[in-house]
């Protein structure tokens, strides 16, 4: 599913450098990436999703060399193959719950925005327990409900890979577990690969593998 070799990435005018000699994530695997702030967890997700491109090395995701694809190709790949979940949910405040779920289709002409997609949005909302709130503004939802909307949005395009950046970081303990259960349930039901970044070691129990960036040193194999 994901294979990175001899990966090097540095931000301009920054001393930070991410170095990964070898990283392999199998399809269907649920991987938790843990570690302190500033250790490069989010950078790894950006490299996987093609938001950032490596300075050196090679990264393939679903057999796509995302590091060498052009901007448009990486964007198309991101839309079609990856579902992203963020710590602050990153919902659009002027849209309803349903339109937020449908946002990937709203902003990509390549994706259909027809009755089938709307139906899928409704089904996802039902499955995540927000089916009765489809027409509400997202700002009127609780934090747990907002993250469910973000999960629905990530799942809308039936991606094979879910990248979650601190998906429970803004949630209370009860909602943390609910959101994780939802994620695991969907990954299991749809055979999805999940890579979740977190600094909360209490939530890593359900993952198949844990990559700890605190123990990781440049040159290590992950």
């Amino acid at each position, binding site marked *: 599913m994901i294979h990175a070799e001899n990966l090097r990435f540095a931000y301009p005018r920054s001393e930070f450098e991410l170095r990964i000699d070898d990283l392999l994530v199998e399809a269907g695997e649920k991987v938790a990436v843990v570690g302190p702030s500033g250790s490069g967890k989010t950078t790894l997700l950006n490299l996987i999703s093609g*938001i950032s491109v490596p300075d050196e090395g090679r990264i393939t995701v679903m057999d796509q060399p995302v590091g060498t694809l052009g901007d448009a190709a990486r*964007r198309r790949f*991101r*839309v079609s193959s990856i579902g992203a979940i963020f710590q602050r949910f990153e919902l659009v*405040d002027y849209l309803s719950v349903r339109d937020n779920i449908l946002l990937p289709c709203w*902003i*990509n*002409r390549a994706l259909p925005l027809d009755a089938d997609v709307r139906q899928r949005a409704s089904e996802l909302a039902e499955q995540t327990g927000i089916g009765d709130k489809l027409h509400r503004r997202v700002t009127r939802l609780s934090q747990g409900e907002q993250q469910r909307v973000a999960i629905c949005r990530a799942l809308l395009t039936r991606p094979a890979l879910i990248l979650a950046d601190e998906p429970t970081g803004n949630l209370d303990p009860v909602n943390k577990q609910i959101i994780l259960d939802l994620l695991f349930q969907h990954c299991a039901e749809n055979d999805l690969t999940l890579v979740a970044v977190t600094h909360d070691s209490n939530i890593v129990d359900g993952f198949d593998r844990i990559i700890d960036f605190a123990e990781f040193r440049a040159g290590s194999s992950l």
Partner: protein
Amino acid sequence: MMRALRLAWRYVVHHRFKSLLMVLCIALTVSLPIALAILLASFNQQIVSRARATPLVVGAKGSALDLTMHAIYFRTKPPGTLVQGAGQPVGDLGTAIPVHARYTAQQVPVVGTTLDYFDFRKIGMASGPGLARLGDCVLGARAARRLGLKAGDSLLTDRENVWDIAGSTPLKMRVGGILAPTRSPDDDVVFVDLKTAWIIEGLGHGHEDLEDETDENLVSGREDGVVTARATVTNFIEVTDENAASFHFHGNFDEFPVTALIVLPRDDKGEALMLGRYQRDDAPAQMSKPIDEVQNLMQLVFRVQKFFNANAVLISVSTALLLVLVVLLSIRLRAGEMETMFKIGCARGTMASLIASELLIIFLLAAVCVVSVVLVTNWYADDLVRSLLG
């Protein structure tokens, strides 16, 4: 593009207050100069056509523009009054139509004139017989609507000065009819016969017959058949069929006042001769050509308009700069939203088209407002200008 427009519409609706402010800023900046230009064009058209239709006016010496505006619009004060005999230099070179507009009835100007005026302006009756006898009045169409009067009703003139109890007393006039609408200042006034206007002024009056009166409280003396009445004699305040014959005037009509004379020259030569006569130092009054006065006025107005136009350009530029600032700040505030969209696969071009769509909607809404203002202004311009002039 449709998706971007629909998303943009949701943004505009959600931020409706900010959007409304932007729409109003643009709409006001654009529509105000246009509305002003429409009003000015209407003003120019109305005042010029009215002035063109009034060949010459005679009035007391003073401001020719004041005289013109008084003679054609009745509202502004004339430079002074003159006697009716001031029209004598016209002679047989033209026709002088008197205008005596000093009084009001329920704040509507009362214009004393002769029947020639109605022929000259081609004003017909919409209802009622018209000026049938002394004390009758006919109302312009809008004045009748405003006062809620119809033929057969009565109308009381306003007292010239409420503190002067010895001044002219109000006259109760019979409404002899309503004039057909003309979309001119004639719609906004009350017309009476010139003699009725003089009665309002107190120059003519009616009272009980004193020929056989022996009461010394009413009659102070008799000499050569002339009865001298005391102030205790009660004047009629209304002309009726029964007392109409008792109304009379003391003095020579040529010495009676009018506020202006509208003069219709027989021909161009007659006009030139009359202008010459009134330019003499010993002329009793001034004669002016309304079209010349109005064109001078409009030249001044158009010069002022140029100043307003330049001002409008500056306001437009500053509004545009403010809008750019608002858009830039808005984009900055929405950086997080843009970043999210980018992360989930939105192209930079799509984001730009989203913002462009929002601006397009704002400008379209502003355009709708501008068109509405222009249409409404265009629709009501004539009436608005007439009410301003009237």
